[in-house]
Every structure is written in structure tokens, then in C-alpha cells.
């Protein structure tokens, strides 16, 4: 594939469909447009979530009320959780980058069910709107925490039903995406693209799709039961009528723990794309990485009980969940070792996406190892519901999935928009982000093991210094985010044309134009070599696989 565009080349931005203008976007069934719709809507929700997080940290700057009252604080941390989890990080990488890239990476024209794909974006928007609207309706903003624990969630007078309905709709949207991806991977691979020639990002999306299908219905039914409980009082979870609140926790975590893997697996997929491209080497242990995704998906479905070690489960259940939790660390470690091994003797090019990956490996390793501390019953009993848990969660989900969302943004920015950004500024933003991140969340580890409970509005004077450090860290972190986004926005307007393959990537998305034409390729892709086969670099680049 030569870099000069063919005479008939027209990017998907210029393609004229049935509708034009804004309708051409919100009614388009083109997976690339839907991917971008997701991308922009998620970015907006992300900024709302960041603002809420900023307010929360600001409140903790001093003891006693700083800028808000306790009830307001409860609402803010609940919304921060709901928005970040259900509206940003769960759909995050799969629905945004996955939609845009999965069909291109396997050489397809679109996903299997394009109209269903559009429907899932609409459901996402409807769910998001309901969640936001619930703040201003009777009862006031929900204050249960994003976990909706019973019995508080059936007793509180705040608006609980609408956020729950929103979560249900969002879950449905997530299921439809999962169904679409799995079918697409099975049915629409290009000629020669066997399962073991698929890029690892596609593998991780495939595994994610299965978690979405197997896990999400459980939260669906749990949410329905809580709604029924609140509306009709059937007593299924209400201890006053013989119900079992711990059963609610079981059902909630049967989904919500695998949900963490919905967040992290695609992130790991992005790592596996970026490292070979920037190290100029074939990925080490392709099959090990691919299968570890499936192993994480399966074992990760079975470890939910480690969220409930102090809730009054049986001892038998506690050690079983503890054991399973330790097992899930194995496939995760397999991935980390393979990534590091890939870099060995590589000719590494230090660009922003790669720098994000370095930050990821560092932060994710800390997050993963502290996960083992929490997975052991004996230590968890002391650390449960402290800042230690909050910190661990943010290391994995923000330092892991969030940073890889940023990495994906930088890695595929040239493909999505056809422009190049300023790499030097981007590298600085990675540095600032990482420093802010460590100041904010590593401090929380210390606060946690010194005994600072999570979700508390106030704290003892002895925690003051560390809270100030964390809050300042949040400011550094936010300035990093602002710098990063500004850099990308400037590039969007004034960036230089990127060319088809600015990084020298070998996966199929780099063998078509940037931005890609309407049905992704102006030739019929056929795959001969593996996705990271740098030994055949010249042949792949010159022949378009």
C-alpha cells in the first residue's frame, strides 16, 4: 500500500450517506462514526466525573466542611462512581476504540449488526441522560454509593429508582456491543485472518465480549429486583421480611467484579498493540497473551466474593474466594512478563503512546500487587473499606484502564483524525499525569493503612497532612489532563497530516488510509503474516499484508 491516496479515496468523514449534517452522525450505522460518537460522549462524561472528583478532593483539604455539606458529599462520591464506572470506563475502550478499530483490524467492512450497534449507542445516551436527569428530580441526587447496597438503598429517600433504570439500560447497551463484537470476530475476518493471526487487541475485545454477555445480565436482574423491592416491597432482600442483604451483595458483585475485567482486558489489549509497534519486535508469547485473556475472563467471573470478606459470609466461602483471587493474578502476571520480554533487545522508539504504556506497567503492577494484599482474608479484614481499597481500585482502573484509554487516544489519533500531535508536549503530559497520580493515590495507600475509612466526609487531625498532599496531587493530575487534551485539540485543528502509517505498525488498520475510507479498505485485504511479524516488515508495508 503506497502512501499516496488512490484517486477514488474519500475518507469516511466525507462519505455522503442517506442523511447529512448532524443526522449523518447520530443515525449513521458506520462503525467508525459510532465509535467516534461513543468517544466524544464518553470524553464529556469523563470530564464531568473529573470535576466531581476534584470537588471531592477539595472538600477533604481541611477538616470539617470546606465547600459542601455531608449530604452533598455523599451525592458527589456516588455520582463520581456511577459516571466514571457506568458511563466512562466500562464502555470506554471497547465501545469507543473497539467499535472504530475492531472491524478494520480484522479486515471487515463493518460489524455484523450495524443497526444494533447504533441502537446500543442510543441506549447509552438514553441511560446517561436518565442518570443525569435523576439528579434534579424528586428526592434529590442518589447517595448510596455506586454499589447501591441494600438495605440503605431501599430506605433512603433520595432518587434511587431512576439511576438504577439508567444502569439497567447502560447494561443492555453493553450486552449488545458484546454480542456484536463476538459475532463479528467469528464471521467477518478477512481471508487468511485466522484466530491466531488476529491482533491481540481483538483477542482482548473478544474475551471482554464474553464477560459482557455472561456477567451483565446478573446486574440486570439485581437492579430489577431492587426496583421491585423499592416499589412493591416483595421482601427478597429486606431483612425485615426474611430477605438476605448478603445475597444482594453476591448478585451485585457477580457482575461488578467481572466488570473490572471489562475495563482492564481491552486496556491490556492496547498495551499488546503498542509495545510491538514501538519496540519493533514480534510480541513475545502471542498465544500465552491471547489465552491469558480468556483465562482472566473465566477465573475473573468466579472471584467476586473477595469484596465481601467482612460482610458475614461463611468461612468456607471466604477461603475459596481468596484462593480463586490469587489464581487470577497468574494470567495477569503472564501478560506483564510477556510485555517486558517483548521489549528486550527491541529498538525502542520513545513516543507518547509508549510512555503511557511504561506508566501503565508501573502503576498496574502496584495496583495488581496491592490486590493480593486485599485478596488475602487476614489483611483484608483490616483494610476493608479504607482508603487502601480506594487507592488499589484507582491504580488498577485509572492507572490501568484510564491510562490505556489515553494511550489509545495517542496511538490511534493519527488514524482516527488523520493528523499528528506534538509528541514532546504529549510526553510532558504523561510525566505530569504520573506524578499527580502517584501524589494523589499512593498517599491514599498510606492513609488507608493508617485507618482512614473511605466515603467519610470528615477525618481526624492526624490525617491532615496526607490529605493535603493527596488534594494537591489531584490538582497536578488535572493539570496533566488539561495539558494532554489541549495538545490533542490543537492537533485536531492544526496538526500536520499523519500519513497512513506514522508509527510503522503492521496490523491492518495501518494498511489503509488515515482516516479510513467508508468501508475501511479500497482493496480486499488478505492476510499472510502474523499481526506483529516485524521479520517481514517490508513485504507487509509494501504489499498491504
Amino acid at each position, binding site marked *: *500500500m*503506497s502512501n499516496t491516496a*488512490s*484517486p*477514488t479515496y474519500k475518507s469516511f468523514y466525507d462519505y455522503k450517506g442517506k442523511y447529512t449534517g448532524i443526522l449523518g452522525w447520530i443515525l449513521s450505522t458506520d462503525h467508525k462514526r459510532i465509535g467516534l460518537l461513543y468517544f466524544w460522549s464518553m470524553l464529556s462524561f469523563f470530564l464531568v466525573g473529573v470535576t466531581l472528583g476534584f470537588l471531592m478532593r477539595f472538600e477533604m483539604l481541611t477538616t470539617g466542611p470546606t465547600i459542601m455539606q455531608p449530604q452533598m458529599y455523599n451525592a458527589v462520591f456516588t455520582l463520581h462512581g456511577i459516571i466514571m464506572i457506568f458511563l466512562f470506563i466500562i464502555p470506554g475502550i471497547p465501545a469507543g476504540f473497539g467499535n472504530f478499530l475492531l472491524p478494520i483490524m480484522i479486515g471487515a*467492512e*463493518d460489524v*455484523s*449488526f450495524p443497526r*444494533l450497534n447504533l441502537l446500543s449507542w442510543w441506549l447509552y445516551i438514553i441511560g446517561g441522560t436518565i442518570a443525569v436527569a435523576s439528579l434534579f428530580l424528586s428526592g434529590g441526587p442518589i447517595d448510596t454509593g455506586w454499589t447501591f447496597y441494600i438495605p440503605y438503598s431501599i430506605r433512603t429517600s433520595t432518587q434511587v429508582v431512576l439511576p438504577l433504570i439508567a444502569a439497567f439500560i447502560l447494561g443492555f447497551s453493553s*450486552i449488545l456491543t*458484546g*454480542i*456484536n463484537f*463476538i*459475532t463479528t470476530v*467469528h*464471521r*467477518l475476518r478477512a481471508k487468511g485472518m485466522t484466530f491466531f493471526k488476529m491482533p491481540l487487541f481483538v483477542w482482548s475485545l473478544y474475551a471482554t465480549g464474553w464477560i459482557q*454477555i*455472561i456477567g*451483565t*445480565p*446478573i446486574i*440486570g*436482574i*439485581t437492579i*430489577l*429486583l431492587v426496583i*421491585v423491592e423499592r416499589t*412493591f*416491597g*416483595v*421482601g*427478597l432482600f429486606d431483612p425485615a*421480611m*426474611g*430477605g*438476605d442483604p448478603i*445475597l444482594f451483595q*453476591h*448478585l451485585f458483585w*457477580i457482575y461488578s467484579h467481572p466488570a473490572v475485567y471489562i475495563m482492564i482486558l481491552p486496556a491490556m489489549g492496547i498495551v499488546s498493540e503498542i509495545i510491538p509497534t514501538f519496540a519493533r519486535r514480534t510480541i513475545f508469547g502471542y498465544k500465552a497473551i491471547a489465552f491469558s485473556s480468556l483465562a482472566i475472563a473465566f477465573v475473573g467471573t468466579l472471584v467476586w466474593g473477595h469484596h465481601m470478606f467482612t460482610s458475614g459470609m461463611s468461612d468456607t466461602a471466604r477461603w475459596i474466594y481468596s484462593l480463586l483471587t490469587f489464581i487470577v493474578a497468574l494470567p495477569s502476571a503472564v501478560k506483564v512478563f510477556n510485555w517486558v520480554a517483548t521489549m528486550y533487545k527491541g529498538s525502542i522508539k520513545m513516543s507518547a503512546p509508549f510512555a503511557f504504556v511504561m506508566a501503565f506497567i508501573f502503576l498496574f503492577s502496584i495496583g495488581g500487587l496491592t490486590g493480593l494484599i486485599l485478596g488475602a482474608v487476614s489483611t483484608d479484614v483490616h483494610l476493608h473499606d479504607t482508603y487502601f481499597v480506594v487507592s488499589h481500585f484507582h491504580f488498577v482502573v485509572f492507572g490501568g484502564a484510564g491510562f490505556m484509554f489515553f494511550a489509545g487516544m495517542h496511538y490511534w489519533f493519527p488514524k482516527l483524525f488523520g493528523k499528528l500531535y506534538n509528541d514532546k508536549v504529549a510526553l510532558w503530559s504523561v510525566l505530569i499525569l504520573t506524578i499527580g497520580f502517584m501524589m494523589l493515590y499512593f498517599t491514599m495507600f498510606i492513609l488507608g493503612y493508617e485507618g482512614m475509612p473511605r466515603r467519610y466526609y470528615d477525618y481526624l487531625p492526624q490525617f491532615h497532612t496526607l490529605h493535603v498532599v493527596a488534594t494537591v496531587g489531584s490538582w497536578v493530575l488535572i493539570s496533566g489532563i488539561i495539558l494532554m487534551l489541549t495538545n490533542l485539540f490543537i492537533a485536531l485543528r492544526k496538526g500536520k497530516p499523519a500519513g497512513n502509517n506514522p508509527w510503522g505498525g503492521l496490523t491492518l488498520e495501518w494498511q489503509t488510509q488515515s482516516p479510513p*475510507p*467508508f*468501508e475501511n479498505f*479500497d*482493496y*480486499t485485504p488478505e492476510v499472510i503474516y502474523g499481526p506483529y511479524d516485524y521479520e517481514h516488515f517490508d513485504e507487509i508495508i509494501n*504489499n*498491504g499484508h
Partner: protein
Amino acid sequence: MDTNQIAPAHAATQHRDDFGSKMGMWLFLFTELILFGGLFIVYMVYRIQYSEAFHFAAKELNLALGTLNTIILLTSSLTCVLALVALQKGNKALSIIFLILTKLLAVGFLVIKGFEWGAKISHGIYPGSAELANKENGEIIFFGLYYSMTGLHALHIIIGLVILSFSLVFIIRNKVTPTNYIKLETAGLYWHLVDIIWIFLFPLFYLLH
């Protein structure tokens, strides 16, 4: 890659992938299966906890109506699959008749279910009622489960009716034909799933004597 290949015509995307459609439907059915699976987990937990009370409370349910409904639903599954067979054999009229029969049986199921619920409610057994509040915890839970599970199942019957209506219209308008029947086939898959759920609900609620 030489550039004389022109972009593929738009018509190329209109290809049919029946296998893919069926796979999508199966994946969706799995989510339904797990949705009910969650409810069955709830059932299991409370059955372990309140097994005596469950046996006692189940005596209130009408076994005859439950059995009749099982037979109706199994029969509707048969007519649904026969509608597909008839269409595959090219007999459009027979297919339509079988499909209408399926829908009539489904409505029959709902009517009987309605009578059952009505009888319970008129005896004062419904969530939040004073009558039920006086009973043991285990019985409250049993009826809570009974209403939730059969209610959600009935909701699926209604959704199934809508899907079957679409299939019927498609057949009449020749959108679904003896050579292109995937829409009817996937609708049938959904209908059979609703049947399977009932196959499990029936013994768990009605056969506890």
C-alpha cells in the same frame, strides 16, 4: 497494492449472513438464560434457608392450572417449530396457520396466568398485603419469588408475542420466504427459550407438595 481496484460497491454490504444472525440470537439467548439464572440463584438460596415454609406456601398454588399452562406452552413450542418446517417445505399458508396458533396458545397462557394471579390477589396474597405480612418470613419470600419470577416470565411471553407478530407480518409480506427464513428461525429460538424457562419454573413452584 495497485490502485486500479475501485472501492467495493455499496451493494456488497447487503450480503446475508444467516449463520451470523443465528449466532447473534444465541448469544442474546445466553444473556436471557443468565438473567433468569440470577433469579434461580436467589431461589436456591432461599429454598435452602426456608425449605419448610416453601413447601407449606406452595400448597396455595393451583397445580391443575400450572400443569395446564405447561402443556399449553409446550404445545405452542411445537406449533412454532412446525411453522418453520411448513415454511421450509414451501407451504406458506400452513406456516401462517401454525404461527397464529402459537400466538393464540401464548395468549391462552397469559389469560390463565392472569386468573391465577387474580385468585391470589383476591385472597389477599400479594407483595405488601396485610394478609401476607402476618405470615412467616419464608412464605413472604416464596410469594415474592413467585410474583417476580412468573412476572418476569410473563413479560418475556409478551415480548415473544411481539416478535412472533413481526414474523407473521414478514411472512405475509414475503420478507420471510422458504429460502430466506432466518428471521422466523431466530424468533422461534427466542420462543423456545421462554418455554425452557417455564420448564424449570413449573416444578420449582408447583411441584413442592
